[in-house]
């Protein structure tokens, strides 16, 4: 049972998203972490950011996913620190439109979010080095070995 209630937004202005052909990507410009969302997850977060109440979205289900999957997805967003509540008693979040409920039946996959943190060390390191050489420029492989 989802304990989250009301409307939500991204937890920081550093967190931004773009949608390409229905697929959402999220970038945290402060941490360097970035995320790839499945099609259904992309639809859910778009609806959430438009003000639909999270507990209403958690009632959605279709042939490819269950309500439990939606709940797990939103809980993951909270755990990752990506969203925070914005609702008040006066503005608890919207109901689900009939159109959204109808379209949600044809979403092709489970709502999932893939996390990529290979660049996070690059951003959080102080100084900006000591990270994996495979990340590439400007990470430093080994300060002591480099030429004078």
């Amino acid at each position, binding site marked *: 049972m989802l304990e989250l209630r009301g409307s939500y937004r991204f937890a920081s202005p550093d967190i931004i998203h773009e949608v390409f052909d229905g697929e959402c990507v999220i970038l945290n410009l402060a941490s360097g972490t970035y995320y790839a969302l499945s099609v259904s997850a992309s639809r859910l977060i778009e609806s959430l950011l438009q003000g639909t109440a999270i507990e209403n979205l958690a009632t959605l289900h279709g042939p490819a996913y269950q309500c439990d999957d939606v709940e797990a997805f939103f809980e993951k967003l909270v755990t990752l620190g990506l969203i925070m509540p914005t609702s008040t008693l006066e503005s608890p979040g919207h109901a689900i439109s009939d159109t959204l409920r109808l379209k949600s039946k044809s979403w092709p996959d489970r709502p999932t979010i893939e996390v990529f943190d290979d660049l996070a060390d690059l951003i959080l390191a102080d100084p900006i080095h000591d990270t994996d050489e*495979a990340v590439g420029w400007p990470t430093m492989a080994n300060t002591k070995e480099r*030429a004078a």
Partner: protein
Amino acid sequence: MAHDGEYQGASRLRSLPMSPARFSTSNPVRFQQIDRANLLPFVEWAMDRAWEAVTLRKPQATTLHLPSLEVSLLTDNEHYQQIVGDRLCHHASGAQKNGITVAVLSREDSEMPLPPVWGESIYHPREIEKQLSDTPFRATYFHDDGLWQIYDVHQRFGLQWMSGKFRHPPWEAGAPLRVFLHWAYQTLGHRLVHAGSLGKGGRGILLVGKGGSGKSGTVVGGISCGLRSVGDDYVLVQMNENRPTAYPLFQTLKQDLKGLQRLELEHLLGPTRHANWQNKYELKSEDIGQPLADRLAIGAIVIPHITGGPKSSFHPLSRSHAMLALAPSSLMQLPAERDSGVRFFSNLIRSVPCFQLNVGTDPHEISDTISALMERRYQCS
């Protein structure tokens, strides 16, 4: 690259609308350690000091002709002058260009003191970016070498303040002035993109992906088989009515010994081989085949994927995947302007189709596959 006999950089500086109050006498404020609390006054003070230093000393001025941009480099640091001369591409001047001035200064070759160090607080690039976003300044600090790079977007004046004439990050040698070019081109709506490139007949593709994904190897192999490139690591991209065009900024290509052996190019290293900080060897396009192209009209974004299989192939890739292969490293490896970068990269990704290239083992077969993709793309368009 043209070496100016007369001090044209100073005349450009004199023509800039500088405030007499800002650029007049020595500011007595001293900065021992920098943190977020004194960052802005420090940056203003540093730019004042840099202006005084170039006015007093009149360092050697070198004019660099780049795509849509003319850079006046002011420095008596011969080491850095040589790096710039060897690595940056020269574009024929002609069309009116935007001009910036960059002073590369240290205590050894100017009136500048040692640069102050960053203090005890955590240095977080995003916080620095946000703190300076409402000012004309952009700044970044590299801890290991005590290096400050500061740029004033209004005055179009940059300062690279070094603690010694050799004290710069190792990657700076392969792509000198890259941070200033990033800031200057951003104001023009263009962007440095972390990508390799290959093309033919003025048209081409951008190869994107993490370090080690095969960008450079594919580029070097492609050039050796007759394709053209505008760079293997960072290229300049301009969007004209949603049509991207890539231009070269840096001449050097990089490849490790194993890659050169695989491409049968090891002989190019000669007897005095010297690997860079990534244990890679720097080459120029003309050493392998033809020189870098002046530009490539970009028709596709391609993510290379080394399979180990003998045959190369393409398959369409979602734009979201391509965005995640392109944008994060381009955004995070260059300081500041990340929000505008997301918009730029989104537009770039939406403007062309995206593919995954499963890279085979034969460079000729790989190049033929890339050529076939480009030809199909352009027949369809």
